[in-house]
């Protein structure tokens, strides 16, 4: 199994969820994050003083999947999140040796989906 972590633009979340549903990936977890990447941030001013916003708002998605679901999941994330602009985000894929469903105690591949 793999754990897929993706950082995307907040406004793409709906599209990503849509794309995942189409690939029959129904389970995911979302947190809010701030990120620095190639996207450089922007300048704002508050009461006459300029300031730089360089930690931008991002959405962090975490999805545990069986190995044969890795490619569809990654493709779906890319399909939903890509706009071609800097700041589109990044995907990390990690090994996930074990997974347990709390309600039933099932483990492994059965538990994940």
């Amino acid at each position, binding site marked *: 199994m793999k754990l897929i972590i993706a950082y995307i633009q907040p*406004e*793409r*979340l*709906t599209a990503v969820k849509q794309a995942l549903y189409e690939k029959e990936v129904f389970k995911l977890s979302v947190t*809010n994050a701030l990120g620095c990447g190639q996207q450089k941030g922007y300048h*704002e*001013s*508050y009461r006459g003083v300029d300031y730089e916003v360089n930690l931008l708002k991002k959405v962090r998605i975490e999805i545990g999947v069986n190995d044969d679901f890795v490619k569809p999941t990654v493709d779906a994330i890319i399909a939903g999140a890509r706009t071609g602009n800097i700041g589109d985000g990044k995907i990390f894929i990690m090994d996930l040796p074990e997974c347990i469903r709390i309600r039933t105690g099932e483990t492994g591949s059965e538990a994940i989906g």
Partner: protein
Amino acid sequence: MQAGFAMVESGFTRAKNACNIMMKNLMDFSVGSIMWLLIGFSLMFSAGGNGFIGDLAFFAGKNADSASSLGWTFWIFQCVFAGTAATIVSGAMAGRTKFSGYLAYSAVICAVIYPISGHWAWAGLSGGSGWLGDAGFLDFAGSTVVHSCGGWLALAGAITLGARKGKYTPDGKPRAILGHNIPLAALGVFILWFGWFGFNPGSATAGVPAIGYIAVTTNLAAAAGAITAMFASWFFGRKPDVAMALNGVLAGLVAITAGCDCVTIWGSVIIGGLAGVLVYVSVVFIDSVLKIDDPVGAVSVHAVCGAFGTLALAFVHKDIGTEGYSVIGQFLTQLKGVAAMFVWAFGCGMILFNVIKYTIGLRVTEEEELRGLDISEHGNEAYSGFQIFTAQ
């Protein structure tokens, strides 16, 4: 009053546009005050002119204190009404309107649109004559003159702008876009409720015993509106909805405004109660059937309930049964006023907003809308430091 409207509108919309709404409510009253001084007051209340429009006797505030025996007090009181008419519009257009376009139309509303229709009904207050007022049209404190005027303008604005991105699914079903701060909205409603005790009894413009009576009718209509709107949302929807109950208060207040001095006590309960149901039906109808995106329900509250209250007073007037009062006659007069206001305000609104649309521009870009007007239009954040789910 601006405080109340600012809170209600801001609370009922999303956090990312909260600064923008504050700014709009601040600016429409500020710009409106100056326009009112320059020209609006004169167009509405100068005794010269004719039944359709005043003249420029009080241009730039000259001798404006001579309009009424109340002097400048009359001016400032009327200025707040004008500001109210303008600010109603901002709610319906929340979340997608270009700020510079907003400034432009606020100015026009306070300078020209509101004063002209206002003159029709209220010129008599300053010894002039307006065709509606002369015809016996009753609108004590502005259900039609102020609220419907603002409400129909709001409708024109919402139509011209189009819905917020994401408000309707591709197949046209409305999606709920939740307000970000209901306690703030509730505070705004309480402030408005309180402020209405200034509006309505204040329109008696003198410390007569009538003030007590007006305060009672105003209060009962608001209470009845809250209750019926709550039950409507409970009955037709799933649960007693707080936002609806709050809208019900406003609906009751708007509806009673026309007749607060002349309806019976139980008449005020009836008007308020029906307004509460009406606002529920109207919000759902505009949202789901007409598919017009009015984020705070301004059209339903101000235009629909304002019109309703103006008409309804004919049926619960204190004078019913006394000689010389005819329910049907009064109703037809009221209907004339309501219809005239719709034609005028909605018509002017469609022209005005379309002119702005093709000159200054009325709507922000999609990207700006997604990011929120606070950042894109003002470079400000309403709740700096708070973690806000930036996508839902």
